[in-house]
């Protein structure tokens, strides 16, 4: 395994415990499988981070291939929801979880919805984002700008010199590179849209195809973008945006927010901006610094995004995709892959309300659906103590840690369920109820959902 370069900013120096390793696995991946925190903790901080940021060889998908409720392989191109399940499966089974997590970050950053294109184009885009996972942001921006799903989503393919369409030109500055009103105005948007003219595609019965740059549709006149004049093209547009003074701070603040619950300190921001600019927009050194930063481990918790929560339930309980209900459930939780809510992606600050909480309960129910205890005989023995029952339920999810307060409340419920039984036939149903309740309550506890 490759060694990490020294971090340009503060590094966490506390003990790299299983608790720290667990946070790393939830934030840089999709939660731990059974035994993963101990394995990762044994590598130490640098080793653990390098195992995520510098994996060797292609990713392996561990465990059974995904299938639908009838046992058929997924058909992500043609069946609604199978695309969601296809990617969820990679999140659950990949041995390179940060690759998938970064792809998810770019999917929200460059939010594109299949509502405007097709599952095929969305999956093509997904591979583009995955290929760039910790690569170079400038190159990523170039590839996103000419990506067919994006060209349809933000009207890049209908932006011509005869009829400029500002949609991509505006969102590229506002959402992808600079931030709203940070050093540009409406005239820059308009001129940027002119620079971006020229992409087009054809349509036939099978949908959009033949995406290309058509010089005759490009406005090759002089444009003035950010006070710089030239016959700018779409490549210049990308170059000017990442080299704008307000891009590095936008990039760092935004990327930091995906990983850490506290604001980025000014000295960290300055050091990382310098690294980012000097490396010509390399992402890996920045992520490696964030994953080693003291605030990553000592800062406040983050609410686990719904798709991470869902994948985490399955990883923790050693399950794979055996139903496409996950696509329906994702709607209830507020995060359907390939269908971000709008062009700015998902709102990472507000994942929960009563409705989405109920959606997460559906996810927990689905993860438990093959394991409901309703036997006439309790399978783990009728002498199981309350503590043993709770340990067993924790083991079901891969031994997540609960706060003392949550633990005490759960044990209180266990006592309540077992209290006042008057006949021996009442014992197995009560034991079943206790175990069923512990499993769903652990997954729905506040401790489990905020990491």
């Amino acid at each position, binding site marked *: 395994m490759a060694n990490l370069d020294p971090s340009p900013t503060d590094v966490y120096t506390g003990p790299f415990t299983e608790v720290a390793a667990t946070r790393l696995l939830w934030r840089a991946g999709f939660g731990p499988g059974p035994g993963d925190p101990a394995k990762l903790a044994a590598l130490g901080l640098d080793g653990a981070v390098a195992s995520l940021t510098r994996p060797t060889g292609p990713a392996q998908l561990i465990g059974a291939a995904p299938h639908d409720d009838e046992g058929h392989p997924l058909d992500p191109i043609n069946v609604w929801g199978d695309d969601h399940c296809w990617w969820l499966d990679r999140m659950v089974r990949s041995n390179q979880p940060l690759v998938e997590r970064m792809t998810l970050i770019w999917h929200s950053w460059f939010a594109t919805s299949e509502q405007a294109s097709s599952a095929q184009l969305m999956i093509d885009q997904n591979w583009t984002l995955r290929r760039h996972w910790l690569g170079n942001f400038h190159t990523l921006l170039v590839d996103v700008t000419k990506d067919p799903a994006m060209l349809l989503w933000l009207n890049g393919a209908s932006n011509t010199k005869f009829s*400029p*369409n500002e949609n991509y030109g505006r969102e590229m500055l506002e959402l992808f590179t600079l931030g709203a009103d940070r050093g540009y105005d409406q005239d820059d948007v308009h001129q940027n849209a002119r620079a971006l003219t020229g992409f087009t595609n054809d349509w036939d019965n099978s*949908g959009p195809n033949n995406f290309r740059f058509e010089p005759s549709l490009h406005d090759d006149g002089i444009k003035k973008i950010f006070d710089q004049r030239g016959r700018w093209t779409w490549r210049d547009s990308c170059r000017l945006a990442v080299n704008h003074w307000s891009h590095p701070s936008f990039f760092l603040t935004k990327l930091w927010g995906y990983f850490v619950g506290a604001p980025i300190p000014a000295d960290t921001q300055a050091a990382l901006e310098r690294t980012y600019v000097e490396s010509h927009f390399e992402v890996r050194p920045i992520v490696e610094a964030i994953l080693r930063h003291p605030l990553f481990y000592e800062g406040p918790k983050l609410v686990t995004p719904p798709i991470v929560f869902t994948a985490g339930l399955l990883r923790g309980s050693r399950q794979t995709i055996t139903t496409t209900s996950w696509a329906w459930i994702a709607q209830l939780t507020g995060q359907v892959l390939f269908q971000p809510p709008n062009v700015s992606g998902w709102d990472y600050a507000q994942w929960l*309300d009563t*409705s989405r909480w109920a959606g997460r309960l559906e996810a927990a129910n689905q993860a438990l659906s093959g394991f409901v205890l309703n036997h006439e005989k309790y399978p783990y023995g009728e002498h199981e103590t309350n503590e043993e029952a709770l340990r067993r339920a924790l083991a079901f999810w891969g031994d997540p840690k609960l706060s003392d307060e949550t633990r005490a409340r759960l044990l209180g419920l266990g006592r309540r369920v077992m209290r006042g039984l008057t006949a021996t036939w009442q014992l197995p149903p009560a034991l079943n109820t206790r175990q069923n309740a512990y499993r769903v309550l652990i997954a729905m506890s506040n401790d489990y959902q905020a990491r």
Partner: protein
Amino acid sequence: MRDAFPRNCCDGFTRSQAIRRVLASGKPPVAREWDPRMPIPAGVGIDRRRFLAGAAGGLLTVYGAERLGLTDRMLGDGIARAAALQPANGPILVSIFMQGGIDALSVLAPAGDPLYAKLRPTLAVAPTDGIPFREDPSLLWHPSATSFASLHNAGKVTVFPGIGYADPDMSHFTSRHYWEVGVTDTSVMTGWMGRYLDVVGSKDNPFQGLSMDGAMNPTLATATAPTAAIDQPDNFNLYMSGLWGDGFEWSLQLLTELGDLQRRSHDPAIVQVARAASEVGVVRRTLLPFQGANGTPAYTSPVTYPTASESDLPQRLAGLAAMIAAGVPLRCVALTTDTQFDTHSAQAPTFDTGLQLTADSLLAFQNDLEARGVADRVLVHVWSEFGRRAEENGSDGTDHGAAGISLLIGSRVQGGMIGEFAPLTNLDVNGNQKENVDYRGVYCSLLEQWFGQDAAAVIPKAAQFPRYQLLT
């Protein structure tokens, strides 16, 4: 095979259907069978007090307790306690957000203006197609807005044809945020209705601020007051794998109690999860009487609402009318259209369908409220984050604009036009219409005239905005 243009690939897969199907999981979906024992809590003529008396007693015992093993106390608790804190027959404000920036120049078209035809060569409403606007016959309602036109002709719609704010921002997210928080400041994190609830709301009634988008609506973001998000009242139907009866009730109670405890945590992420868990308990208890078998509503509507495979907006409004009539203690309610009106290309089909559905749904909602005898308590505010560029863009669409259109609908509105149509001869430097009514002035007027609330406690610098006479 997937449709080549999957904009409608979700036929048979709308959000409401998705929710219904998932919520019904565990039981095979069956056609609704009418159960004669099932109460119609939102029925016409059942007044608030009688409903609440029923909710605490016989009505729910039959329906809820039998099926779910609940005690009367648990059922009556949430709604009765919340209702006790709410003034009887209090006013309700419903916010309808037409997301994406609706093209005001198509909703109300200056069809007689030659400049309009020039700016809109493909998108202009034809002079023969529209419906004349009462105050100014040179303006035409779009043919898809007949329901708005008839409500307006009946004096039940006030129209703001040139609403916005100075120095307009053309970003969806910035402009929408300004409208949501009631101040042109990107750092404000509470919604304007949310701040009103922080001033007057109760500590234990999440229904005072109800989002019906299946997710929290930012206009209702509060600092302290509890709020709730649902989709429709009939499908907030919780269950837990392998649990029923006491085991289920105790488990849910444990989660809501952990929510109550841990929402006081110093960690904001724990607070966010715990708040939702804590509010889930009250929401569920209150909505039980609205839930029929297999996720179907236990209420009926006295009017017919439109149906659409792409949107459940009409069904959400039908559920809202039922909740209002039943005396659920609502104050501020927010809904977002499923239609995205961000029509950069091929505007007509999206715009026409979306506008028609929105207008027809709101007409049905008004008729529903009138039939139930509660229309005087309700005011509907329809808005969008901006209008669109006066000149169409060449992709048969329109880019982001500035001033736009807003409506107030209800039995007590003054029913005319406030402000004026923003003339096409006087566009701003970006070619957008200029505002002549400030949206913050409308918020201040709503707070003062509808809620009797000093606007200064809710809207920053309230004194500097004009007031408009909104009610009769």
